């Protein structure tokens, strides 16, 4: 008799593989082998080393660890410099083979350097680690103590999540992008609407997206409160990863990294063609409404930065709006490209020049103002930002008002001096 086929979600398949099982059931708690652990200068060595020394233990497999210096590298104060120094010294002492220092933000440089491929289970010492889900990796954020445990054991526990399937059909209008999709989704489901379950993005509007745009979807699954934000692997995934140098063996048969038809999911349907640019008012990403409702807000700072909003595609989006224009005299436009390599590409193709010609000040390839750890915005400022979070007091003193929007909308607002619909600037 043929065995009964029970359809599994992508999340179940990824966890089962890492747990060495043929299948896992929703709700069960299993121990998984970790394929890759990523940490940065804030969550990494400065926190891990004292605990590792206290235990008298060693990292289970340094080849599976990637250290990224991105949080404190653009900050000049001595405390920050000390953290960076401790990080570099520890990396040498531990003989870490994969260290990416001051070359971009962890969630962007990790796939850029070919560290991710479909089927992996990965942890990151940062809440935006679900970004790796865009590559059909079960990747999630953990705190430093749990990272220490992973570093010692190479394992982590996971409760097999339910899957919330976010189905986006139709086609996005020009000037509307993944960031708008996520702000809209967070407004609909709420900041913790993901309930620490798995979110999976599907539908024609998702498969039509490039990898950087898909990364924005997975990235902001963190704001939904999901553990992971997964996207099935397809030809777009393979093409992107092949170009980063991922071994061909890792790119064979990736089409099985998808949810089986009939796998139990809670489905939410969205129509991409109806989506207008979205803006989240202070102080929550869930505080999102359509851009047209914010025409009387006049930001003094327009910020294009972070893993969420300053990837190559985001820079191109901003440039497409700013081309030939000049930002309003009342606005300071700041651009912090998410990675050095992406910035180099943006330089080669003229995107960076377009941004500079429009009046942009270009900042270093780091988390910058988004993390709120170093250079933040001055008291009382009104900011429109392509980043992910606008919590009170995150990007400056509590008096700073941050509006979240897509890079298109940030650019259009910089041009006019008021929060503006980029579709008009692009028309």
């Amino acid at each position, binding site marked *: 008799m043929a065995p009964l086929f029970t359809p599994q979600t992508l999340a179940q398949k990824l966890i089962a593989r890492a747990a060495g099982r043929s299948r896992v059931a929703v709700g069960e708690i299993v121990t998984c082998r970790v394929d890759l652990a990523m940490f940065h200068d804030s969550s990494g060595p400065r926190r891990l080393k004292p605990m590792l020394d206290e235990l008298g233990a060693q990292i289970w497999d340094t080849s599976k660890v990637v250290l990224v210096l991105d949080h404190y590298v653009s900050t000049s104060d001595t405390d920050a410099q000390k953290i960076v120094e401790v990080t570099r010294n520890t990396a040498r002492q531990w003989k870490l083979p994969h260290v990416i220092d001051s070359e971009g933000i962890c969630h962007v440089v990790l796939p850029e350097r070919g560290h991710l491929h479909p089927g992996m289970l990965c942890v990151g010492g940062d*809440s935006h680690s679900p970004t790796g889900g865009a590559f059909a990796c079960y990747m999630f*954020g*953990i705190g430093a103590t*749990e990272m220490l445990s992973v570093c010692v054991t190479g394992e982590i526990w996971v409760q097999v999540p339910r899957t919330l399937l976010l189905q986006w059909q139709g086609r996005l209008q020009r000037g509307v992008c993944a960031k708008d999709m996520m702000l809209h989704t967070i407004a609909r489901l709420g*900041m913790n609407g993901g309930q620490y379950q798995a979110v999976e993005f599907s539908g024609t509007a998702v498969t039509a997206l490039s990898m950087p745009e898909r990364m924005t979807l997975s990235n902001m699954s963190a704001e939904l409160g999901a553990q992971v934000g997964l996207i099935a692997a397809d030809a777009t995934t393979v093409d992107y990863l092949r170009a980063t140098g991922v071994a061909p063996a890792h790119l064979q048969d990736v089409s099985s990294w998808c949810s089986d038809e009939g796998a139990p999911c809670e489905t939410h349907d969205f129509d991409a063609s109806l989506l207008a640019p979205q803006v989240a008012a202070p102080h929550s990403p869930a505080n999102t409404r359509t851009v047209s409702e914010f025409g009387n807000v006049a930001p003094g700072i327009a910020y294009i930065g972070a893993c969420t909003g300053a990837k190559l595609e985001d820079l191109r989006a901003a440039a497409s709006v700013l081309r030939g224009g000049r930002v309003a005299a009342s606005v300071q436009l700041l651009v912090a490209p998410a990675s050095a390599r992406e910035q180099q590409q943006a330089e080669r193709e003229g995107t960076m020049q377009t941004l500079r010609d429009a009046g942009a000040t270009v900042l270093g390839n780091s988390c910058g103002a988004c*993390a709120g*750890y170093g250079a933040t915005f001055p008291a009382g400022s009104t900011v429109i930002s392509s980043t992910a979070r606008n*919590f009170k007091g995150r990007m400056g003193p*509590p008096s700073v008002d941050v509006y979240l929007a897509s890079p298109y909308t940030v650019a259009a607002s910089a041009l006019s001096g008021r929060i503006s619909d980029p579709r008009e600037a692009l028309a």
Partner: protein
Amino acid sequence: MSMARVWRVGSDVDTDVLAPGAYMKHGIDVIARHCLESVRPDFAGGVQAGDVLSAGPNFGIGSSREQAAGALHHLGVAAVIAPSYSGLFFRNAFNLGLLLLTCPQAEQLEDGASVQLLLQPDGPQVILADGGQLACAPIPAFLMEMVQAGGLLALLKQRNRSASHGV
């Protein structure tokens, strides 16, 4: 069992409120002094060891920085009582030895009230001064064990010791 004073905060308390970014470069003692200062400026200075914090839904949303849980633990908070938590914060709290009680009726707890915690395996209870009880979701045994050991690091140390003694 001793009585615990309730400190009450609202919903959607995020990690920037618990561990403000500007102090993240410092140690937990400094971060703890600024814990909740933007919503409860009297908290960090006034909280006593053994007090409990009650909150609305979505407590701990935002960053992975475990100092958000560490600051509460450092201040001696015995437990947080809220209807729901960020999943990432939930893991961090238990890893650091901070007990979180998932209590749908947490918002019935009044600021300044005295309560007792009854930590029974099938579902903890919050006992009110008038004898009323609020039921909380059961906590998996391995997480309860972690909190009782003082957190994941303490647990790893115990295991190391057992292993080196051949137990």
